[in-house]
């Protein structure tokens, strides 16, 4: 019980700190925090697949793009209602993920990774080539942030970054909470079982392929959520969202932070964005230094930053008790 309380306290503290950001930090920090939260939603959902189920996908950019284009096209042709737009984006992502997932989940390991890579790149070139609908390589530009209508005619404006921040924070908190629940749930345990031993899971009566598809689509929905929010934040949707280089981002941050914990991908995402930003202030050769930092983290922090730190902490605590 005590641990659970501590847990809740820590989560509330983070939430509180995030709520305070727009009042204490500067505009650019607000913006960066939003980007960190978007990457966080993307990665924390993605890690249900990688960390929890043990499947490495290189195609999640496709669902991210589906979310962004879904929202953009919905906004252009149907309604600019942001919540409906986000719902449309997530729905689009779920659809694409169902289609791709159906093909891909029959394989595992590197074959799964390569198959998702191929499917993601097909979505990329589809977006690139369907110029009439998607705007080709220019993408959809000028996506609006209309106010959010609530019941009783109240409209909440999200036009400025300070206002939109809370829109993002809402979905971030919701997303992290959902993933946290999933990790603690029977479904989460079944996924962990598939990661640990897929064959045995089948002999435990778990329809492995269907679970893989389910978690694939679920993580795709998170990617779509992040994508649709980014479309609102940056007012555009662009084909490179579906490119494999973008699909690799959640992989990278999950590994950076550690894929065996909930906070791993979140911390990894924060490190990834903050680190690049800091390095870029000092040098144009950011790739060199970023690469070196990556090396240090991979070799020095086995199991990611969070994994390593918590192991250290546990060791220290054990020593203290003993």
């Amino acid at each position, binding site marked *: 019980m005590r641990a659970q309380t501590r847990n809740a306290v820590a989560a509330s503290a983070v939430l509180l700190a995030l709520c305070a950001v727009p009042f204490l930090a500067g505009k650019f920090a607000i913006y960066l925090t939003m980007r960190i939260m978007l990457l966080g939603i993307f990665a924390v959902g993605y890690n249900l697949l990688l960390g929890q189920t043990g499947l490495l996908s290189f195609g999640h950019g496709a669902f991210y793009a589906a979310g962004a284009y879904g929202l953009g096209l919905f906004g252009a042709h149907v309604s600019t209602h942001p919540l409906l737009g986000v719902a449309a984006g997530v729905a689009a992502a779920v659809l694409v993920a169902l289609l791709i997932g159906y093909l891909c989940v029959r394989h595992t390991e590197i074959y799964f990774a390569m*198959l998702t890579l*191929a499917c993601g790149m097909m979505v990329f070139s589809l977006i690139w080539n369907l110029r009439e609908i998607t705007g080709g390589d220019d993408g959809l530009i000028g996506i609006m942030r209309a106010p959010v209508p609530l019941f009783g005619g109240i409209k909440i404006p999200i036009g400025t970054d300070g206002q939109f921040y809370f829109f993002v924070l809402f979905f971030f908190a919701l997303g992290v909470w959902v993933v946290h629940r999933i990790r603690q749930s029977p479904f989460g345990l079944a996924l962990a079982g598939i990661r640990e031993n897929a064959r045995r899971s089948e002999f435990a009566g778990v329809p492995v392929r269907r679970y893989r598809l389910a978690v694939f689509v679920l993580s795709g929905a998170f990617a779509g959520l992040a994508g649709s929010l980014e479309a609102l934040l940056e007012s555009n949707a662009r084909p490179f969202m579906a490119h494999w280089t973008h699909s690799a981002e959640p992989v*990278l941050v999950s*590994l950076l932070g550690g894929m065996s914990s909930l906070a791993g991908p979140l911390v990894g995402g924060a490190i990834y964005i903050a680190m690049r930003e800091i390095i870029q202030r000092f040098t144009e050769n950011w790739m*060199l230094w970023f690469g070196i930092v990556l090396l240090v983290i991979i070799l020095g922090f086995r199991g990611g930053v969070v994994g390593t730190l918590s192991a250290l902490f546990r060791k220290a605590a054990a020593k203290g008790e003993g």
Partner: protein
Amino acid sequence: MQSYVHVILAGLSSGMFIWLVASGLTLIFGVLGVLNFAHGSFYMLGAYCAFTVLKYLGAGFWAGLLLGPLAVCAAGFVVERFFLRHVYRIALPYQLLLTFAFVLIFDNLVKIVWGGGALSPPSLSFLGGSIPILGRNFPVYNLFIIAVGPTVALLLWALLEKTWYGRIIRASSSDREMAASLGVRVPALFTGVFVFGTWLGALGGGLAVPYVGLLTPGMGETIIIEAFIVAVIGGLGSLKGAFVGALVIGILSAFGTRFFPAFDMALTFILMGGVLLWRPQGLFGATR
């Protein structure tokens, strides 16, 4: 007729060119079990080093082709001996991430050393120019590439199948523990294979200098994806597969660009996806 022949020739040369890069990648995966993302960087370094020998040292194309890739082997050695060795036992994504870090580092180093601008080699005197085939010119150098591809394949085959080293390499790739118990120094062997694979990639880079006609930082990133696709289609770790895969990709994309241009960006990926769905282990991969 003329058109088809030239499309096939273009496909053959680009296929053999990709094979040169994919061979090292495949060898390394087959023996070490590592998907080396930085292989494209070795290709790039090979090109830059060969170019340097050729242009700044004025030593000519052959010297560049010989010395350039050899210089890159040092980089390969450092990467394997001091970094990659520590992640053999960790999950695949970590290996990818580690090698990706080297992609960033090498891209940036090339920019620092050689500048960000594109470098362009002078045209070759020997092997330069073109000869008419069915009334249309075809570059001599491309014919040279078409010849180099199978030569390298043959040499690799002979090395692996006919020599003592080859037998050791094959034994270690199928069972590390067994090889170690027979007294093979597996770590040293792995370093050796990695450096050799690096050399193959760098050789591809050296040959790219006249073939692509252009050197840019980041030039390895497009080719590595193609090489990956080729390796996957052929069956990861299978050199024969990579060779056939490269031919298939080369010729099909030449036809695709010529006759189905709408699909050319997705073509290789469609092909890879199709092969994976039909035969997940690739054309010549071992069944799991």
